[in-house]
């Protein structure tokens, strides 16, 4: 089993299966499963992004959803101004990166839970600002987006189109994460996470590397936010509440910090479970959905405190 999991073809087989899914899912309730698959993909992107901050650099961020919001609103505003969809996505990533870098420059000297609470504060500041700046964002009423359907030749169903686009984004992000993880930069991050002072004494520019991890993670959130806005063709501040930030942190921790497969599985479990219950639970049990969700959160944590699929490096550290 373990051997199969770590086989070098396994990720590619899984990717092919995932890509084929919407075309074979017709037999079952396809609309719903493809839609949920896409949403899971968006949270995989968010999780992969936060993994840079939390998993690699060990910086605790409780306001990550703010950058998802910045990406979504940048896309909405750009498309309203007439930008084509692809350009809007690029802009979303760039603006998100810039905001994140500015934030990082100011707050990265804070440590541990102080950083957590400041990022949480920034998350709320971002949401409230979007809600209050009616002239730019249309405030609580939200913004409509024109449809953008670049994959119209593959399927008429926008769910399938966005599912495939998100899947591609997840695949590219996984490869990018893996390459960075194995690079000089990735090793520097791990050195910093394990022992900051030792890392500094070894000549690693700690501040710069931390800022790099912190900033890079926003690119994923910006891309996810942009795709989300284009898929829904509508953005509203109601989508970017504090709870969503907690959900992303839970995905990374529950899946396994610093572990790419872990993050993917974490998103699959946490984002997939409530819709699964919506689908399969009878009407009498529907109110219990989030009670069960909480139960799953506690039980999985107790059962696998290191995460469902912890990174091999961490596992080695912890068992030694």
């Amino acid at each position, binding site marked *: 089993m373990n051997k199969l999991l770590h086989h070098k073809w396994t990720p590619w087989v899984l990717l092919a299966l995932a890509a084929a899914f919407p075309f074979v899912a017709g037999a079952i309730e396809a609309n*719903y499963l493809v839609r949920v698959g896409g949403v899971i993909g968006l949270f995989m992107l968010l999780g992969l992004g936060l993994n840079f901050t939390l998993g690699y650099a060990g910086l605790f961020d409780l306001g990550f959803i703010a950058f998802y919001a910045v990406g979504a609103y940048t896309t909405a505003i750009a498309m309203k101004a007439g930008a084509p969809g692809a350009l809007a996505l690029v802009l979303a990533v760039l603006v998100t990166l810039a905001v994140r870098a500015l934030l990082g420059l100011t707050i990265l000297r804070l440590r541990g839970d102080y950083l957590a609470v400041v990022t949480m504060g920034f998350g709320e500041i971002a949401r409230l600002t979007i*809600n209050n700046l009616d002239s730019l964002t249309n405030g*609580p009423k939200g913004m409509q987006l024109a449809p953008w359907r670049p994959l119209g030749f593959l399927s008429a169903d926008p769910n399938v189109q966005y599912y495939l686009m998100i899947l591609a984004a997840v695949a590219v992000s996984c490869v990018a994460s893996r390459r960075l993880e194995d690079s000089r930069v990735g090793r520097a991050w791990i050195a910093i996470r394990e022992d900051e002072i030792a890392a500094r004494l070894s000549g690693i520019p700690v501040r710069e590397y931390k800022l790099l991890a912190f900033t890079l993670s926003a690119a994923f959130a910006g891309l996810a936010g942009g795709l989300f806005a284009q898929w829904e063709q*509508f953005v509203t501040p*109601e989508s970017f509440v504090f709870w969503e930030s907690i959900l992303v942190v839970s995905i990374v921790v529950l899946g396994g910090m610093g572990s790419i497969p872990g993050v993917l599985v974490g998103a699959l479990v946490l984002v997939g479970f409530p819709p699964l219950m919506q689908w399969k639970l009878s009407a009498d049990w529907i*109110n219990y959905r989030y009670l069960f969700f909480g139960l799953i959160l506690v039980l999985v944590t107790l059962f696998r405190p290191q995460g469902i699929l912890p990174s091999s490096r961490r596992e080695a550290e912890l068992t030694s």
Partner: protein
Amino acid sequence: MIFRRAAVLAAFAAFAILFTACGPKEKVVKIAVAVPLTGDMGTEGQGLRRAVELAVEEANAAKRFPFKLVAAPYDDRADPKEAVNVANLIVSDARVVAVVGHYNSGCATPAAKVYARAPIAMVSPAATNPEVTAQQNSKDWMGPRMVFRVVPTDDVQGSYAALFAAKKLGKKRMALLHDKSPYGQGLAEEFKKGFLAQGGKIVSEDGISVGDKDFKALLTKLKSDSAKPEGVYFGGLYTEAGLLLKQMRELGLKDPFAFISGDGSMTFGLFDVAGDAADGAYLSIVGVPADELPSAAKFVEAYKARFPSDERKPFDHFGYEAANIIMAAMERAGGPDREKVIAELKKTKHDGVLGTTVFDDKGDTTSKIVTMTRAVSKKRAFDTVR
């Protein structure tokens, strides 16, 4: 350790049983109720679910249809992403004939796009943002027009309240508060427009957040405002309205300092939150009050009999009406056919708890009757102001 593993395995086994326990499915037709059933807005969503269940049970008892009709609940948690999720689930289920939902405008707007592609009719009992129906006329709309709304948009209530404040109460200076939600802000903006048109003056405008509890600082500011407001108009829901009233009275802002709000605050919950402080609050309601319309009074009685431990929530009668309008359309269509039901819904002329409902070319109700009521806490009632 062994104990822990056993406990975890037992829990997972329990889940597995829960999921497989749904037995054989009998032949039914469903009306979907897509509202927040859990989370912060769960209170309001549960009320809507009860109202639709009541309507469906009444129809089954009267044998209106040759099949069993059920109200199928879907939980959107007031989260736009989950709303689109459940919209996709609803359109996948061929037994669903139409949708009553969603509660929030932020959920109704993107979910409607999914229903349009099916297409399946959506009748909203609570989402008041004009965009929910207006988007159907945009060039980007993919599908037929199938969004309907039994709850009037903000302009109807807001401007009536403005007229009432200026003409009936003789107010010249009002303060404006709203909860920064599409509903509350929309109401407040329309009130402002109307009140300015009446020659009144808005001395201040403040937004609060849903979930805030402490408004004393804000109210203290209003009280000592040099522009001397003679009352406050609040766009928002009963929880915040109740707390505002309670804290206003505690700070000594009493009659003739007026408190005016809309139908989101006109619910018995207001008395639970505000207590005696609710006395004298003016609340507008769309349509005719229950005691003047026999059909509405019947609904109030039936609701009380069916759900004795639950009080009605502000939008419940809209949910009940939405379900009844769908059922009437289904009768005229001769069966549970989604497209025929949409066509019949457009021709709706329904006499029910809201008076007569007719939809205009956007799908909005043309009913423009607004009644002003005054809260009486001792009776837990809202008396009509003439």
